[in-house]
């Protein structure tokens, strides 16, 4: 119940295309769903986050779509650029709990070809 499942494991997109990464969860108590971006040799960095009472959140070229009934959420990267090539992790958090710990998905390695 504490797992977050992420797909695909890897993704290759042409420059200018749309990258889509999907995640699913089981625990309906999760109350925040962030996405993290990780470049080689670096730690993950927060990209964008959404609450389960919001169906969509957009920040620049990055959009989270959230489907509460299906317990799924996805990251869309519009007009994908070579600089977006990185590993992306979805996560779920229980802010309301004592710890607010993050449960990460397995990660998606994105390669954007010029």
């Amino acid at each position, binding site marked *: 119940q504490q797992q977050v499942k992420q797909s695909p494991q890897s993704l290759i997109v042409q420059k200018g295309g749309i990258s889509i990464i999907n995640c699913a969860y089981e625990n309906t108590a999760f109350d925040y*769903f962030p996405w993290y971006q990780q470049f080689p040799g670096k730690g*993950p960095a*927060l990209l964008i986050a959404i609450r389960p009472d919001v169906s969509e959140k957009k920040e620049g070229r990055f959009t989270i779509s959230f489907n509460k009934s299906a317990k799924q959420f996805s990251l869309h990267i519009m007009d994908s650029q070579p600089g977006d090539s990185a590993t992306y992790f979805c996560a779920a958090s229980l*802010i309301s709990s004592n710890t607010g710990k*993050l449960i*990460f998905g*397995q*990660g998606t390695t994105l390669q954007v070809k010029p």
Partner: protein
Amino acid sequence: EAEVAQSPRYKITEKSQAVAFWCDPISGHATLYWYRQILGQGPELLVQFQDESVVDDSQLPKDRFSAERLKGVDSTLKIQPAELGDSAMYLCASSFLRTRAYEQFFGPGTRLTVL
């Protein structure tokens, strides 16, 4: 820009040896996390501190791992003895606001190789 500092960046050790990793979180961040990231997987929480107190160490292998944050600032994670399966990236993160605990700031990590 404030960053989470970690050292060393790389550590190679032989099994059964002791290793220690150090983390200095962003100033003012009361919550500190240690994660283990196995190659090709997402980070997994090992231990979480609120100031100097442990609030979650449910996934910490306590027979060989220990963590401390004595003054509520920097922290040390120790493995003794190291095993081959401990080879991974060890990430430290910190967060400021309890209500934004999903926003964690990660350091560059320590890559551990156990031979």
